[in-house]
């Protein structure tokens, strides 16, 4: 009987994680409209939540594990969770984009929902930055005159191209990560077993991808 629960970020992470979940020998619960599936004898529990909420859910112990993009973890530094595994799925990259493929000169205005990583990126380059905080639809910001540059996560870059934006720089590549509540990791033997099962599935998946 499983007792622990894994919280998974909606969208691309959820889609990509299904393969690893089933490769771990667990039946994939059909989400329908439900967002919470308690643990059963056959699989750990399962919570579907917004990506940015996953570290908080895990830190507070509402879920033992979380599956979330590295982009979210880098933005939320200081959350008390342990990062156990690079799941090598849901790849994407954090990019700086603009209407013209030109590196900004002087103080730069950037629209983003990742203010921390954006500030760090420009601080490392000693370039003053003015953050315009938005929670979505960043691609519109340069066209609406909110900011000439955006920092956002892209997978293929198609959305950027459709909005006539160019990638100026890659801040970092990102994949989905397995995180765990430190108390659960240090006190519950089941946590080590779940991690080992997922690590095996990742290894197997990497091997399959190498073959193909």
């Amino acid at each position, binding site marked *: 009987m499983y007792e*622990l629960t894994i919280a998974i970020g909606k969208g691309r992470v959820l889609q990509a994680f299904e393969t690893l979940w089933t490769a771990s020998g667990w039946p994939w619960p059909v989400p329908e409209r439900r967002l919470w599936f308690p643990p059963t004898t056959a699989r750990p529990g399962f919570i579907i939540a917004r990506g940015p909420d996953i570290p908080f859910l895990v*830190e*507070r*112990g*509402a879920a*033992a594990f979380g599956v979330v993009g590295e982009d979210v973890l880098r933005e*939320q*530094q*200081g*959350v*008390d*969770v*342990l*990062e*156990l*595994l*690079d799941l090598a799925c849901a790849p994407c990259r954090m990019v700086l984009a603009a209407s013209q493929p030109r590196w900004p000169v002087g103080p730069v205005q950037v629209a983003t929902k990742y203010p921390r990583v954006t500030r760090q990126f420009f601080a490392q380059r000693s370039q003053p930055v003015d953050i315009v905080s938005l929670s979505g639809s960043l691609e519109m910001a340069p066209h609406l005159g909110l900011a000439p540059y955006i920092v956002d996560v892209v997978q293929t870059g198609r959305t950027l191209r459709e909005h006539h934006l160019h990638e100026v720089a890659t801040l970092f590549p990102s994949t989905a*990560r397995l995180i765990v*509540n*430190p*108390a*659960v*990791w*240090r*006190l*519950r033997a089941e946590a*080590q077993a779940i991690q080992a099962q997922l690590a095996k599935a990742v290894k197997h998946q990497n091997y399959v991808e190498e073959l193909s």
Partner: protein
Amino acid sequence: MNYWLDDNRRHYRAFTDCVTLLLDRDFSPLFTPPVAEQRFRTDHTEAILAVVESFPTDEIRWPLRIFSAGPLFGPGQQWAEALDIEWIGPTTDHDQSELIEVLSATSVVWLESPRARSDLTLIVGHLGWLHALMAGWQLDEVAQRDLLQHLRAGRLSQVQALVNEVDPGALPLFSPQSAQPFFAALNARLASVQPPIQTWSGRMLWDLSMVGRRSYYTGLVFALYEPRMGQPLALGGEFGGGQSPLHQGLGFTLDLGVGRRILGRNLYV
């Protein structure tokens, strides 16, 4: 409403039990501002040191035994009520034993009965041993700094990769172990290390990935967990390394919010 007020009363009684215990043991309260120079207090120890520093050190009898209570602020809108207990200045083995006694006594007030003490688990790491291991592995300064940064940020996947490169046999030292296998693996690498804590009556595990989030820890670091809680009831350790007696000592912080949840058995995991 009455249930909520009862809950508040039980919480406050446990808090005052802790304070009474500290006053009886000759600890002095010290008040620090929760907000200063437009910055919110994130740590009692640093705030306490800033106050103590304002006195001439030759007037002080070390170690100072201090406690401080009040909110600590985290990123965003988060905050937690905390009680911080410190031995500031040069300390002895006796002070370390007393820390364990005080940790035990102030944590047990949050449990339903003293018998539940055996449920509490102390996870212990040690920065001194970690530095000795890294020196033994002949890691350069940059690699040592990287490993420490990964540990403080909780990036265990990176830690495992780094340790696996230099000493795969040391990997179990970076996950929780009971004393016997932990010290067997540690003593195979360092000269005769003895467990520094002998008097803890509950469950105790050793784990070098426990380094604390604060960079001032230099020796023992620990977290105390109630197994059904997702967050530690107490976090603490040993700090030192500076010439001034001010910048050495022992201490821990009790998270009163976690204590309240233990009392109310409002369990999530």
